[in-house]
């Protein structure tokens, strides 16, 4: 745990939670501690969300604060903007990231620039939560990983945790942040692990990544659902005698440039893993961070393991689209043996 970047209040005990439970706990903590927090989304009330991320919250906090909205993403985000500029802290759920696109106009033409264009007179303290990613045999469109669309938008932060502990601390930080945050939740990791999560309120700093493993030969950079994939590859690489450093970026905008630079300057090699399409993917921004900060330290070309430049396929082919430990390992080997 990165103690440095963590602020805790009233944290005494912990509970073992999955990521989706940690998200629920974060939302509950904020609904309890801040009367202006409101949740909006499709099927988040009585049904508790299709992944149960909002289970029990409408019952506890009422229909005015945990709102089953009409089926309209542009309506959800657009009205959230209005609520946010007028004293509320809306946390909007997109049922799946692949269904955020109807809200694209609101995000790009308003959420991204209200603060800038009004010179700070108005701001949009809004969080948009979106489960994302492939690998659970979901029907089509349910598996997109669209982070680069949003890191490209100015004025919006993009956060993507990979563990229950980080999910709670980062979600609370996102809700308390004065600016809009897209909060991506890797649905493949929702129930993959349980972890001790402190009760009550704590925050993790947005913009800070984490070194999850120290090593000297190569830096492997991942986030969200790709973190466990990278870790599996790293395990195999270590059996072959390669010492790998693993970074979990956790925030995708702004990137933790210092962490990336420090690590790559030590190892001289980098492998970036993401499941989104290659062209215009976040991997290219990370490459430019490395180029700008650490060019003279590089001992091998930077490797990227990504989804291909194709629409996320129907699920029979999704395992071919997603980076696998085998593909990551091949790239680690290529970098180390360059």
């Amino acid at each position: 745990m990165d103690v440095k970047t963590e602020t805790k209040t009233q944290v005494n005990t912990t509970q073992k939670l999955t990521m989706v439970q940690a998200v629920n706990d974060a939302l509950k903590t904020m609904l309890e501690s801040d009367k202006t927090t409101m949740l909006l989304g499709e099927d988040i009330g009585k049904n508790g969300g299709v992944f149960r991320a909002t289970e029990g919250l409408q019952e506890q906090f009422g229909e005015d604060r945990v709102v089953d909205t009409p089926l309209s993403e542009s309506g959800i985000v657009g009205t959230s903007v209005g609520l946010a500029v007028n004293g509320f802290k809306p946390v909007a759920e997109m049922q799946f990231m692949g269904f955020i696109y109807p809200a694209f106009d609101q995000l790009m033409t308003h959420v991204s620039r209200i603060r800038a264009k009004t010179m700070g007179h108005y701001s949009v303290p809004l969080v948009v939560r979106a489960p994302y990613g492939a690998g659970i045999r979901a029907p089509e469109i349910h598996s997109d990983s669209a982070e680069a669309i949003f890191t490209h938008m100015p004025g919006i932060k993009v956060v993507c945790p990979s563990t229950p502990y980080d999910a709670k601390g980062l979600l609370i930080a996102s809700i308390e942040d004065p600016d809009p945050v897209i909060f991506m939740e890797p649905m493949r990791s929702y129930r993959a692990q349980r972890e001790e999560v402190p009760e009550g309120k704590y925050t993790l700093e947005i913009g800070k990544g984490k070194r999850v493993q120290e090593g000297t030969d190569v830096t492997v950079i991942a986030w969200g659902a790709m973190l466990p994939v990278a870790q599996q590859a790293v395990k195999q690489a270590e059996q072959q005698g390669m010492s790998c450093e693993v970074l979990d970026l956790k925030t995708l905008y702004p990137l933790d440039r210092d962490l990336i630079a420090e690590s790559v300057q030590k190892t001289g090699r980098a492998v970036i893993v993401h499941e989104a399409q290659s062209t215009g993917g976040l991997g290219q921004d990370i490459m430019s961070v490395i180029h700008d900060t650490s060019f003279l330290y590089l001992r091998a070309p930077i490797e990227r393991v990504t989804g291909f430049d194709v629409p996320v396929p129907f699920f029979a082919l999704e395992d071919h689209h997603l980076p696998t430990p085998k593909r990551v390992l091949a790239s680690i080997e290529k970098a180390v043996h360059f």
Partner: protein
Amino acid sequence: MEKQFPIKKIIDDQGNLIDSQYEGEIDQELVQQLYYHMLRIRLFDRKAISLQRQGRIGTYPPFEGQEASQVGSVLALGNDDWVFPTYRDHGATLTFGADMMRTFLYWNGRSEGVIPPEGKNIFPAAVPIATQIPHAVGTAWAEKRKDTSNVAIAYFGDGATSEGDFHEGLNFASVFQTPTILFNQNNQYAISVPVEKQMHSETIAQKGLAYDIPSVRIDGNDCFAVYFETKKAVERARNGEGPTLIEAVTWRTGAHTTADDPTKYRPDGQGENVINPVERLEHYMKHHDFWDEAWVTKIENELTNEVEAAVEAMEQYPKPNPEDLFDHVFQNNPKQLEEQKHAYLEHLGRV
């Protein structure tokens, strides 16, 4: 508004004819056609649920309860018309001629599953809600520009009426007077959200008023009401009289999908009194001397065999091909995509 848009019925819940003007129009052929297709798609639907439970296909959205809406409407179309379904409208697409084996394949995560038979205009099921409505309007517009008399039907749910694409589609249909049938199945729920929370309006039909689109509200569990009202809309469209909005009031008997648990949000006992449209037609057939036990047994056997054969063919279908990830993105792939493909196939040891 409920008074302005009364629910039209031709038979009642018990299968009695209540609108005598249709007496002469309902013949053995029509009755048997409706019954045959409703039974067929019900067997498909139930099979799909059981395949999902056994892990033989992925998540599946059942349509039981909506058989009359889907079969009645699609049978009112002609062979050259266009169908724009959602993920829940396989009853309509199968009746219109979609291949059953491929429909199973679709739910097994295969793109091959969306390909319609030669000469059939069936668009892939729209998963993003309401997005198919403007498509159907555009396709109908194209038919109008080409001076044909073909029409397009868009299927959508009650939840879809909240999306911008619904309103934008209706407005375009109205402005350009396209030959489009806007066929709403109001099955009372959008996943967990009941229609009275989805909208403050009493009916969906009334939404057509704002666009000056003739609109009608029908009993979506009465296959005759569905068939004859859709037929009228199709005729109007063919005659250049523009779009029609049909609200078919029906009921989703089962869960939203096999991943959903309706006991979380439906009050106990809700929908228990709804008579399934297949049984309702059966009652009608028995009251009006159309019931032929031997014929029913014969088609039940035939249809069961057809469904089983489709499942078998789906399961024996050649394994998915990783090349297909890359091969259909463009007509001519850019070099960088070809390079990605080559590198991946090399990684797999396939080149």
